[in-house]
């Protein structure tokens, strides 16, 4: 059994080394940010059962939080990235009343919130602040090497968060809530409060991911950082690997994102078809994710 320390340390080290063997640094960086988003989905969905379709809202908030910090506050890039994380957690706090809704309504409401934020930021009437639909330019702080290192660190942080949630008393409470919210209340657990903490951790991770993305690409448009397919991919990667585990979302992202790019490069005309069929097959045959193969094997032994 691999220890948690290794699970936290190996992915960032692996990604750090990978840049010396693979020349498409932006692709690796994007993969890392998807690992972070998938782990963020893991924390909120895997441990509370709440599926945020509007998860990309935090990513966009992080990207714009960073951009506006650079443009208006003239702070150094590293601080701007942290402020992007702050933007994510503030949006999470603002949306935390949604956690009083039941699952399906929560999913839809979070989607609506992300769309609303997108239209707010891309509105030409606020272009004095956000530059509206014309996007932002951070070329003054552009540093792809440093952004890559920041993403490596964020992958480590995301792993640490998941290991902590999984091993801590807090995580135990979350699993109890997920198993039976009513019993959890009768065990004295503050159900809404515990869900809110998970939600804030998750929104911070997505905010930081968006922040690093904004820094790394340095020029972006609102539709790029509020693209709903970012939510969808993060959710699919997390589910493919298996939520509620530490390793699942990591493996899910590496495998599926890898396949995604392989198909996209070699067979672009069949991309949607192959990818769609793949997802249907996964849902049919591996509803609990890749890691369930291992777990299934283990329970058979017992």
């Amino acid at each position, binding site marked *: 059994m691999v220890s948690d320390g290794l699970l936290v340390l190996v992915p960032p080290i692996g990604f750090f080394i990978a840049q010396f063997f693979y020349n498409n640094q932006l692709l690796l960086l994007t993969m890392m940010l998807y690992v972070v988003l998938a782990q963020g989905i893991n924390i909120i969905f895997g441990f509370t059962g709440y599926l945020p379709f509007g998860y990309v809202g935090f990513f966009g908030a992080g990207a714009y939080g960073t951009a506006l910090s650079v443009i208006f506050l003239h702070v150094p890039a590293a601080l701007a990235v942290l402020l992007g994380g702050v933007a994510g957690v503030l949006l999470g706090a603002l949306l935390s009343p949604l956690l009083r809704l039941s699952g399906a309504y929560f999913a839809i409401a979070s989607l609506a919130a992300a769309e609303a934020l997108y239209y707010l930021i891309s509105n030409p009437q606020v272009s004095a602040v956000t530059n509206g639909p014309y996007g932002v330019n951070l070329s003054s702080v552009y540093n792809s090497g440093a952004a890559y290192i920041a993403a490596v660190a964020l992958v480590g942080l995301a792993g640490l968060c998941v290991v902590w949630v999984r091993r801590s*008393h807090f995580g135990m409470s979350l699993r109890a809530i997920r198993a*039976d919210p009513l019993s959890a209340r*009768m065990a*004295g657990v503050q159900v809404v409060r515990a869900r809110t903490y998970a939600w804030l951790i998750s929104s911070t991770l997505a905010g930081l991911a968006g922040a690093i993305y904004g820094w790394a690409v340095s020029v972006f448009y609102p539709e790029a950082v509020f693209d709903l397919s970012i939510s969808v991919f993060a959710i699919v990667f997390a589910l493919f690997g298996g939520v509620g585990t530490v390793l699942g979302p990591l493996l899910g992202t590496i495998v599926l994102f890898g396949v995604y790019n392989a198909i996209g490069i070699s067979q672009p005309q069949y991309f949607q078809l192959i990818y769609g069929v793949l997802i249907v097959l996964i849902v049919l045959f591996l509803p609990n994710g890749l890691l369930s193969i291992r777990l299934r094997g283990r329970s058979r032994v017992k």
Partner: protein
Amino acid sequence: MGSSPSGCVGGLVSSSPALRIAGLTRHFGGLPALDGIDLELARGEVVALLGPNGSGKTTLINVVSGIYRPTAGTVEVMGRNATGATPQAMVKIGLNRTFQSPRPFRPLTVRENVDVALRHGRARDQSREEVLELVGLAGKEDRIADSLNSAEQKQLDLARALATGPDVLLVDEFAAGLRMEELDWAGKLVRTLAAQGRALLVVEHLMGFVRQVADRVVVLNAGKPIFAGSLEEAAHDTRVVEVFLGGG
């Protein structure tokens, strides 16, 4: 109300009852499921709640434990007003309950099930071992709750409630479905829990079990208390006999 079902039974009710329910009423869509229930329980006392199906026994437990808000009336726990408190608040004030069909945290181990309640309850000096020993689950700490049989799941549900350190415990059909040899043990457990200073309100259908554990009984019908007293008196009460034998 001169014929309050509480207070009239010997010297068992002390000056400050562990649980005092007054005029408790709950409507569902205009229909009264509970209609002006008065009840007092002292520490160390076991009161059995009887009544036909649909008479409001489980609804009473759900309202008192904070799962439903009362439409009217008050709930006091250990002298503190707890009317309309949430389940979490009830746990902190010192009241807990078990579920008719047990609701343990199924994917979690027995150990984790108890630990959640120990951690979020009010009795942090209590140990997991004590609780599991008491309910008869010692040695099964590593079992997944879902793999327990139904009697064990009831024991675990009770362990979850006890681990929060309640002064008042509402027990919804703990004996139902137990085998004969388990019934005697369950009866002794209920008496032990009371002897340790808790007040227990138990909902039961098994009269043998009620005779073994209850100091007195309260009979509900259609959301109203129709009798309070000893089980022997209840058996000779015309209203009670009518309700149970389906007359009138």
